[in-house]
């Protein structure tokens, strides 16, 4: 692991004579600074999180009681679709890219990302992608209503005309992700400080490096499949149309060959974040650093051979079902190793429970619950019962909300003092944590029950036996949504530099290069690389 350096402090006075920070809107439009771009990504992702969240509120309001009250089924389907797309491509992925921008150069002792102009472009095309997607909701016939998985032929022959906009916006998101990934790889490969060997790299850097390779491998597959949807719908091809010699199930194979690695794209950086926070607040080095690296790499490799577990009911040959069942079960081994390592890191530590640690602990518990329901879903014969029910909805929200998003919040609290130079408002932070923790479980835990009892997902109205639980789920949903406004208030306060000044190290147990530069981090850091001993 990276440790002490001694050539740091000249950065601060360098800044005074040969760089000035541009002011106003131009600073943000033309910036090539990794910290500015990181900030842009993080705010963008938070705005998208609130937008996608508002859609979830509409969904939960309609499902508050049986019957159709607030929206019609066609609009309901648009809400579930766009909620999914926004949360995956607009909230979680850009948040991790934002963290990568802020942290990777500081963690490896590099002055900036390797390709700063491309960095600017890969951010600034994103708002347009989502503007296109959101504006399609106002078209005649409405926005995409075929689920974020856009299964053909519902998304081809049977979709509304806004499908072309959907395809175009997914292309832009894909281009942005690929450029971001290239930048991360080139930066890590070439710009590590002298002495930072591969096995001394911080875990967040390792997990992002692997994530970036996953992105480059699968985003083109997504681009391919949306293009096939486009040509099937508008140009008379028959990739997914049996009448023309195609196969609708082939769509699902291609989509999930992208989609399963995508799931790990959204969780591997989270593993990295948690592997920083737990050692800091346990005041003890991460247990099993090497096995963490190998586990991350194994998860990434396995992610390419499990995609069809999303498709057990499509009618695959029994041999294929068995292969994908066993391969999927296998993933729980390296994932388990990670959880055990975190617990072992806590064991015989000297723990304190600041807000980043609270989120990290909640992550370990709740992500593991999501992982265990994932193991249940891997068992093909039982998956026939779980598939496309609320049990699946519960599963992926446990891994994505209390997994990925909790890790992003943990990261925000952990590094916020480094970014802003002030300590966040601890009272608000605690309110945010406890309100989120309670409400998120009221929201997602009962979904396991309604799913097992037989409630399908993506329906705007349901049979009467599901009514009680759905009411509680909706109440939990509204509470979780409102809790995030506390976070918004806290972030605004911190960005306006209201709070106790933070020290360079911020946390007593924090280790790594980013904690050796002052807080707030100067606009330019590590213009001369530090030497890692």
């Amino acid at each position, binding site marked *: 692991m990276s440790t002490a350096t001694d050539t740091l402090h000249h950065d601060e006075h360098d800044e005074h004579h040969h760089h000035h920070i541009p002011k106003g809107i131009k600073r943000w439009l033309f910036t090539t600074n990794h910290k500015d771009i990181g900030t842009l990504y993080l705010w963008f992702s938070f705005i998208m999180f609130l937008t996608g969240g508002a859609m979830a509120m509409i969904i939960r309001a309609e499902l508050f009681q*049986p*019957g159709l009250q607030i929206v019609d*089924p066609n609009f309901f*389907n648009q809400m579930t679709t766009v909620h999914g797309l926004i949360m995956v491509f607009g909230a979680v992925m850009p948040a991790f890219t934002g963290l990568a921008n802020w942290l990777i150069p500081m963690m490896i002792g590099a002055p900036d990302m390797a390709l700063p102009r491309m960095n600017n472009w890969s951010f600034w095309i994103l708002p347009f992608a989502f503007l296109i997607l959101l504006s399609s909701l106002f*078209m*005649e*016939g409405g926005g995409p*209503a075929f*689920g974020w998985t856009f299964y053909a*032929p*519902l998304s081809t022959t*049977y979709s509304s005309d806004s499908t072309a906009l959907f395809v175009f916006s997914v292309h832009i998101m894909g281009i942005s992700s690929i450029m971001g990934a290239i930048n991360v790889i080139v930066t890590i490969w070439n710009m590590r400080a002298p002495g930072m060997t591969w096995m001394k790299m911080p875990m967040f850097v390792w997990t992002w490096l692997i994530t970036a390779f996953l992105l480059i491998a699968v985003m083109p597959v997504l681009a391919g499949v949306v293009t096939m949807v486009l040509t099937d719908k508008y140009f008379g091809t028959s990739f997914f*149309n049996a009448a023309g010699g195609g*196969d*609708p*199930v082939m769509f699902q194979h291609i989509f999930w060959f992208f989609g399963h690695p995508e799931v790990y794209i959204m969780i591997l950086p989270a593993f990295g974040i948690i592997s920083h926070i737990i050692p800091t607040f*346990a*005041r*003890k*080095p991460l*247990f*099993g*650093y*090497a*096995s963490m690296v190998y586990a991350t790499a194994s998860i990434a490799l396995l992610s390419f051979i499990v995609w069809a577990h999303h498709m057990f*009911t499509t*009618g695959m040959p*029994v041999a294929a*079902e068995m292969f994908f*069942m066993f391969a999927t079960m296998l993933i*729980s*081994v390296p994932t388990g*190793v990670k959880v*055990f390592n975190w*617990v072992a*890191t806590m*064991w*015989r*530590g*000297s723990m304190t*429970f600041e807000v980043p640690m609270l989120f990290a602990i909640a992550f370990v*518990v709740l992500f*593991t619950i999501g992982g265990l329901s994932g193991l249940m879903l891997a*068992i*093909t*014969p039982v998956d*026939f*019962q779980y598939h*496309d*029910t609320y049990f699946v909805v519960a599963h992926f929200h446990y891994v994505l909300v209390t997994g990925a998003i909790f890790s992003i919040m943990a990261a925000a609290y952990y590094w916020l003092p480094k970014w802003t130079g002030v300590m966040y408002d601890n009272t608000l932070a605690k309110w945010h944590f406890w309100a989120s923790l309670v409400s998120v479980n009221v929201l997602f835990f009962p979904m396991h*029950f*309604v799913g*097992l*009892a037989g409630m399908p997902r*993506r329906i705007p*109205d*349901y*049979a*009467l036996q*599901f009514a009680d639980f759905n009411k509680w789920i909706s109440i939990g949903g509204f509470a979780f949504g409102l809790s995030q406004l506390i976070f918004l208030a806290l972030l605004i306060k911190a960005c306006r530099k209201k709070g106790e000044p933070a020290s360079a190290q911020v946390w007593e147990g924090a280790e790594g290069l980013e904690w050796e530069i002052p807080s707030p981090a100067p606009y330019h850091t590590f213009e001369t690389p530090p030497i890692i001993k």
Partner: protein
Amino acid sequence: MNLLTKMFVTIVTMFITLPTLAQSLESEGRSDLNLRSGVTDISSQVYDLHMLMFMVCVGIAVVVFGVMFISMFLHRKSRGAKPANFHESVKVEIAWTVVPFIILILMAFPAAKTLIAMEDTSEADMTVLVTGSQWKWHYKYMDSDVEFYSTLATQQEQIRNKFAKSENYLLEVDRPLVIPTGQKVRFLITSDDVIHSWWVPDFAIKKDANPGFINEAWTNVNEPGVYRGQCAELCGKDHGFMPIVVIAKTPQEYEKWKAEKIAAIETAKAEEDRLLAMNMSMDDLMTSGQKVYLAKCAACHMPNGEGLPGVFPSIKGSNLVLNDRTGHIDILLNGRTGTAMQAFAKQLTLSEIAAVITYQRNAWGNNTGDIVQASEVHTYANGK
């Protein structure tokens, strides 16, 4: 940190009580918390697998979270804990890689065995072809002429909160599928338009209906009864409104039902011939046309005939309806490929088609004054 201790106790108790709670509710016959064990040998095997997996997961969770919470309690700075400095142990790391692997292998055996049994559709006693389309199911018994559509029976007024909701709200159909108990029934499952998924939880069957391909599933029901399910794959606007109801009858009663059904088909044919020969009045056509319209057309074209702009075209003021009489008959009979418009030639009788065409040509201000008789539809259908 008192709060933390309390949370710890709550969460641990929750995890310990959960499985027992689920089981006690199960024994009381409540199935709104857990999977049902169903009414076939396979479905009860699936249920047992589910409970086994659930218990293993709860076990793992209790151990992992237990160690973690004990550590959070004991190894706190506020209790004066001093950090140890260990950060690896090859023995422990090998152990917690190998032990889960062994648990997985033990779980894989029963799972594979059940899976192979579920996928063995050979030597069936009878076969039913199940076809999904937006938003109804069609059942065809392969050994006879019996075939029919099965659609949602819940009234729109219940869905729109105007009437009180009935007991089987959204889980009731006009014509349920009927199968015999104690026989191996094979289902061939396909679709006419988008992908649907035929799911009956009590049989542990969920199989996608893929357009242009045929999937297979089977069941052998032990107990007579009414079993309800729903479409499980997002299939468009009314995905939530295409339930499945299967009635399992004893073989004797099933045969009786089937004989009645075949007789009813004969009667319907005779009635159709009789209607073909007679001319119906405008009023009669409008009344029965409205009934057909609301049952078959209103889901897309809306009860007011205006459709959903950009998704389903309006019939009110439509050029086809106002100016192209044969085109109107043609689209009803044959549908339009490449769109969501289905062919209704097999879904409706000739007189129903005539009535609904007459209705569409005269309702909502489409005052063409046209009367279309069953004979005209018949001539067009056979003239092609």
